[in-house]
């Protein structure tokens, strides 16, 4: 919901900028797994232009739901915003998300998935062969490892599934958006539970930050 006549928030230097939905006129449609990072960027950069609508992060496990889910939000938002931008990679939709976006005339951030655009798409592609047996976590996935991975994939209830899911992986690579020792501990612990070697890579917000800067 955008009230085009509503005044932009007034800020004085040094005052905290707190994001609130419904104020901006550029709608960001995003995966729920990016919500915290998007809001952090908006607040850190004091961008008043953005409104954000997130779709369920659990669709990470069922990507076939993403294209039509995004289309539904686009259609309900059209005409109410100056522009719409989608913060999803292809995310396992096999090009179907791009097809929907082409039909709706909306663009998305470049990249196959968030692991790539956090790392930098070019760099991610360069290391793809080296990382064939790597299982990636982001801040979000480290934070919600239990819910999304351990319980979501049924490993908690059926430990015998663990080798079926992770038997071919050798390393867990934590792609960190922030430097947070607590999240590092969670990621390291996740690697141990999966029986994988652990590697830490700080990515920051990568191309997510650049994409938002260009549209702010």
């Amino acid at each position: 919901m955008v009230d085009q006549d509503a005044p932009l928030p007034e800020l004085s230097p040094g005052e905290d900028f707190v994001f609130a939905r419904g104020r901006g006129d550029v709608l960001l449609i995003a995966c729920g797994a990016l919500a915290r990072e998007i809001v952090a960027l908006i607040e850190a950069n004091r961008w008043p232009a953005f409104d954000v609508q997130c779709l369920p992060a659990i669709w990470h496990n069922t990507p076939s739901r993403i294209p039509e889910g995004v289309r539904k939000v686009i259609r309900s938002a059209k005409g109410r915003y100056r522009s719409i931008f989608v913060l999803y990679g292809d995310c396992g939709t096999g090009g179907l998300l791009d097809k929907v976006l082409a039909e709706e005339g909306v663009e998305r951030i470049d990249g196959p998935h968030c692991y790539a655009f956090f790392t930098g798409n070019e760099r991610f592609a360069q290391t793809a062969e080296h990382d064939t047996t790597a299982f990636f976590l982001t801040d979000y996935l480290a934070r919600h490892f239990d819910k999304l991975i351990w319980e979501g994939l049924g490993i908690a209830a059926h430990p015998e599934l663990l080798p079926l899911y992770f038997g071919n992986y050798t390393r867990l690579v934590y792609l960190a958006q922030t430097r947070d020792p607590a999240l590092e501990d969670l990621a390291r612990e996740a690697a141990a539970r999966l029986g994988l070697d652990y590697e830490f890579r700080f990515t920051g917000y990568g191309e997510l930050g650049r994409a938002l800067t260009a549209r702010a």
Partner: protein
Amino acid sequence: MSGDDELDLRSLNDEELTQQIHDDLYDGLKDEVVEGVNILLERGWAPYKVLTEALVEGMRIVGIDFRDGILFVPEVLLAANAMKAGMAVLRPLLIETGAPRLGKMVIGTVKGDIHDIGKNLVGMMMEGAGFDVIDLGINNPVEKYLDAIETHKPDILGMSALLTTTMPYMKVVIDTLKEKGMRDDYLVLVGGAPLNEEFAKAIGADAYCRDAAVAVETAKELLARRHNRLAASA
């Protein structure tokens, strides 16, 4: 469907036991499935009959409920594990008794991709349906597919990918087959979560198979069509 801890499988007649094996497969109860399979064999069922009527039919039901969103990946994996255990009992007997064979398939996950859950399910269901399956495993470069084709002379080449970034490699394999003038010698079936029919068509595959049950039906149908075509032109 579970909760029959005290149930004595031997007290069931054949029809009830077959139904119970379907239920136990659905619930991923490996030990119970193996026990049921052994009882049917003791009762004189041919291994092929046990395979098709108890295991394959049970997994077909699992497949339908997966497609309809009633079951999810963990439940399907547990069911597949139970079926695998039943297959392990039957496999040597099937070889001994010479069960009908429908054809041969080489299957593997493409280069850069280590995901094999879907591929393994397809391989198992194809085997259950009467195909000889040569499983190349994961992360296969085109050369490995070509070597396997040369060695095993299959009817079907199956390729699997889970990643958006690795699925284009299927086209590399198909284009190589075309360059070598071998493309039309094989049915090429592709599958994996991010794929769709449009993609399969665009890369020149014969069909996209959305799940293991569809893979079996598609393989049977396309092979039958091919045999009919060959017979008509002979």
